[in-house]
């Protein structure tokens, strides 16, 4: 029988799910902006490196990256002895590639004329980028970042395969303990929807509100 106590037990998986998703989002953010800049300006011909990073991350399942880190590389990199950190780094690394695409799209959506206008006002290229292009690009990127967070929250469930005690793992434990085959996963699914929906929706609306406020396309 599935009881209220089981539900409360299930909820204990939520903090780890949130921790994996938000830590990997932060890592992806830290990797995504430099990658977008490298791809945009290609200093020292590094653009191809960014290209390779993005297409490799786009072509491999994140679960395989997690397994590679946790089981394949724990001997070389001690951090990967932890299943939690392997999952977080795998998701973060992939998110960096995805977020760089979001930022690049956003940077390109800010017209080239603004760069010309800023440089004609005496700013150098970096100042123009930092003070004119980037703040606008960030607003344009908000909806994309919202769906990226939602994707990370959902894909944090792959950590279940490594045995991390997150929401999916807890629902699996409850299913085994109660032999209730319907509720544990259904409630887990509803909890995931309740977490992803507000986050993605909020950033989407914030994005369009700020776009209207600052008159961006």
């Amino acid at each position, binding site marked *: 029988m599935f009881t209220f106590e089981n539900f409360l037990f299930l909820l204990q998986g939520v903090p780890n799910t949130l921790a994996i998703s938000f830590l990997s989002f932060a890592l992806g953010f830290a990797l995504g902006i430099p990658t977008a800049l490298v791809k945009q300006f290609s200093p020292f011909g590094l653009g191809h490196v960014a290209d390779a990073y993005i*297409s*490799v991350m*786009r*072509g*491999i*399942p*994140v*679960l*395989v*990256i997690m*397994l*590679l880190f946790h*089981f*394949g*590389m724990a001997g*070389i990199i001690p951090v990967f002895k932890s299943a939690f950190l392997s999952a977080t780094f795998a998701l973060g690394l992939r998110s960096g590639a995805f977020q760089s695409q979001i930022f690049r799209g956003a940077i390109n959506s800010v017209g080239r004329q603004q760069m010309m206008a800023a440089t004609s006002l005496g700013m150098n290229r970096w100042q123009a980028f930092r003070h004119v292009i980037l703040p606008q690009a960030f607003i344009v990127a908000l909806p994309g970042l919202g769906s990226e967070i*939602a994707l990370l929250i*959902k*894909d*944090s*469930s*792959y950590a*279940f*395969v490594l045995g991390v005690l997150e929401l*999916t793992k807890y*629902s*699996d434990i409850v*299913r085994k303990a109660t032999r209730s*085959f*319907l509720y544990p*996963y*259904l409630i*887990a*699914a*509803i909890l*995931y*929807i309740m977490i*992803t*929906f507000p986050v993605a929706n909020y950033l989407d609306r914030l994005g369009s509100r700020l776009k209207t406020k600052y008159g961006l396309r």
Partner: protein
Amino acid sequence: MKTAAPLDPISFIISFVTEYYPFIIEGFLTTVEMTFLGLAGGFVLGILSALGDVYGTKLMKVIIAGYVEFFRGSPLIVQLLFFYFSIPALTGLNWDAFTAGAVTLMLNSGAYQKGYFKGAIEAVFKDQLMAAKSLGMTFRQTLTHVVLPQALRIVIPPWTNEYVSLGLSTSALIVLGIRELTNISKSIAAQTFRPLEVYLFASAIYFLWITISMKIFDWIYEKVKIPGLEVNI
């Protein structure tokens, strides 16, 4: 596999591939098979729910919105476990992991494809619907001769993204014990004690498969696209 001295990575990969290649091929084919089953089922579900959402009644729209939100808002792993365990418990019907996995992939992909098809159907301009009507075409004729021929071309680029993401998500089928590429790699890694090389090799297979498929879809799109009608969905 018993060897006296540990092999260097390259010779190890060669030796395990020669030893395990039937399993690797089986795993890869299962991955591809599941991807295409999911895409084909999702294609039908996606088109039907997109048409229902654009032209249907209010009740239909609510049901479709619920379906899409459930499958896009929750993780594929949870959906797989949910359907695999709950359907036998609810209906007494015994279904194997392969069927459960394929059906869940279809439902999941349908929810994503619905969004792409809806965007593509809406991209076919409203004036064209009026023009078709004024020529005396019925709704069904308009759909099959005016809307879908254009929408199915416009949808190819976003549809390629769905192919990529569904193809990579098939690795989630490991939770049902289906012997697809990731699961096979896990077994081989456990048997050979060389997870690094095995997973790198699996990554390379996935990467080549996805990259080549994307090139093929790009080529198809270039062949069939309508010049001048490039719409971003």
